[in-house]
């Protein structure tokens, strides 16, 4: 495992006596992209400011390359200069694009040839070379954020801190910039802490994902672990698990569990003891719907629930279909492509069968 380049230990931040951040431990490993996700007000930006040495914690220690940071000392600036931050707003200075990109280097009194080289390099990498002489105030939102990213990359930071850099952009611009950032971060191998409330952004960029809620980190892990095996109901809801039903383990045989949920028998893979009360979690994209009158061949999926369509909502190129299943009419949510939705002629009341594999079921102990 790579050694942490940046660590936070027992971090606590209080605002007017109220705790807004309580993180016993967080580590950022050299070369990785750590995405911190969570709802608004979760304390993500506060954590980023503390890790970026922009705000001292009320208590706790930040370590950079193993050494604790001394707040208020002359070393603080020297350590802070190993970092670069990009915020939601581009926050450019009232000067030209190239002068903005050069700013961090000029603050470090870099040699002017080095500044010119870096500025030209990052103008080109971010695709804004044609805007070099433009006043920053005349840029569009996307152009300004490219400039802000170029300004951060030009410093060649040891750690790049990104605080929702795409939150204010329109979807096509955001997608374009996200793809570009993904390429640049891999190319540079730059250690990055990326704060976002958008789980898709985190999935695209993050090597590891930390889920923050109410000022605390609830789970840290690789994306498949966090998205597929959430540790709590709150995390599950935030990472996009839309079906969460209470149940009880009624049988176990060679790792295959039978869980009774709303009068239905569900087969799941996992570890639990018979009689244990659990929450059954299913991601909408893991469910397959067919009409009850549709003939099917052999299926490997072990779970087949009968139900009726309750409602359907268009979401981008898909439909989110809510199905009432079993005697208690527990709500199960599935995602269906528009094409399948039309082919199946789904409407309220249509009798359907929901199919999913035992491995798609995640159980959270209650």
């Amino acid at each position, binding site marked *: 495992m790579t050694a942490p380049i940046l660590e936070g230990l027992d971090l606590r931040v209080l605002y007017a006596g109220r705790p807004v951040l309580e993180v016993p431990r967080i580590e950022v490993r050299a070369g990785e992209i750590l995405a911190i996700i969570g709802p608004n007000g979760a304390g993500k930006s506060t954590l980023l400011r503390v890790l970026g040495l*922009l705000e001292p914690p009320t208590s706790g220690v930040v370590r950079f390359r193993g050494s604790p940071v001394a707040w208020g000392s002359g070393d603080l600036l020297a350590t802070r200069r190993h970092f670069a*931050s990009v915020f939601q*707003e581009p926050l450019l200075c009232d000067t030209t694009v190239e002068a903005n990109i050069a*700013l*961090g280097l000029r*603050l470090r009194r870099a040699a002017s040839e080095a500044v010119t080289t870096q500025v030209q390099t990052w103008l080109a990498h971010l695709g804004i070379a044609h805007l070099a002489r433009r006043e920053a105030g005349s840029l569009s939102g996307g152009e300004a954020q490219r400039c802000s990213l170029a300004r951060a990359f030009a*410093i060649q930071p040891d750690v790049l801190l990104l605080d929702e850099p795409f939150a204010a952009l329109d979807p096509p611009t955001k997608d374009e910039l996200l793809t570009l950032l993904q390429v640049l971060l891999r190319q540079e191998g730059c250690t990055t802490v990326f704060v976002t409330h958008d789980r898709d952004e985190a999935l695209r960029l993050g090597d590891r994902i930390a889920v923050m809620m109410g000022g605390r980190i609830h789970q840290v892990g690789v994306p498949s672990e966090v998205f597929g095996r959430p540790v709590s109901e709150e995390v599950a809801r935030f990472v996009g698990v839309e079906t969460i039903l209470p149940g009880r383990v009624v049988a176990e045989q060679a790792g295959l569990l039978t869980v009774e949920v709303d009068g239905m028998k569900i087969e799941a893979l996992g570890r639990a003891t018979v009689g244990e009360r659990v929450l059954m979690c299913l991601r909408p994209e893991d469910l397959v719907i067919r009409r009850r009158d549709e003939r099917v061949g052999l299926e490997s999926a072990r779970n087949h629930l009968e139900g009726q369509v309750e409602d359907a909502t268009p979401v981008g190129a898909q439909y989110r279909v809510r199905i009432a299943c079993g005697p208690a009419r527990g709500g199960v949510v599935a995602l269906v492509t528009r094409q399948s939705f039309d082919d199946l002629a789904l409407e309220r009341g249509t009798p359907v069968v929901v199919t999913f594999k035992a491995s798609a079921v995640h159980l959270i102990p209650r």
Partner: protein
Amino acid sequence: MELIWQGLVEAVRLIATGDPEILQIAWLSVQISGSATLLSLLAGVPAGMALALARFPGRSLCVALVNTGMGLPPVVVGLFVSLFLWRSGPLGFLGFLYTPTAMVVAQFIIAAPIVTGLTIAAMQQLNPRLRLQLLALGASRWQLLWLLMREARLPLLAAVMAGFGGVISEVGASMMVGGNLQGQTRVLTTATVLETSKGNFDLAIALSVILLLLAFSVNYLLTCIQQRGRTP
């Protein structure tokens, strides 16, 4: 109308012929008001930045006092500076009363709150997150202050213009602490008052025109600096 016309003609004549007394009065006005403005910048800009950026108990009271000071009546300033510099006053030993130094002191007291107040406003109109961004880019404390001043340069130059405009045009304090002594403390405003009281309207108009031209020239220069490189 005839009187105004005569005054304008006299103003042109005095400027064109370079009347030594008028030139001396105009130059002294520039020196006194320029010095007072410069001193008010040296004190007012740091004070304004501190009041805008720092958080400490009593800050609101300080800001309110500064804002009140922006409307300080020059005669009140003149009165108190006179009392302090009076031979028997607390600072009488300095011997400043009826000297250009006393006029600079009085004008400084008038201009400093204007510059401080407008500096506070200039700093507060900047995006508060900009400070964080500049620190995150590696700015030291001094670099941060310099960059914030650079970002607020338009309103800060407006503060300079307001400060200079406030003191070059005031008459009450200059008259009281300077005494309007010919060749020593007579400035354009006090000379205008004197000539008007003597009924020399043409000369008074000429002095007023020179005062206006002077104020315009300084403000035009500052505006050119302020608007440099800006496209509408």
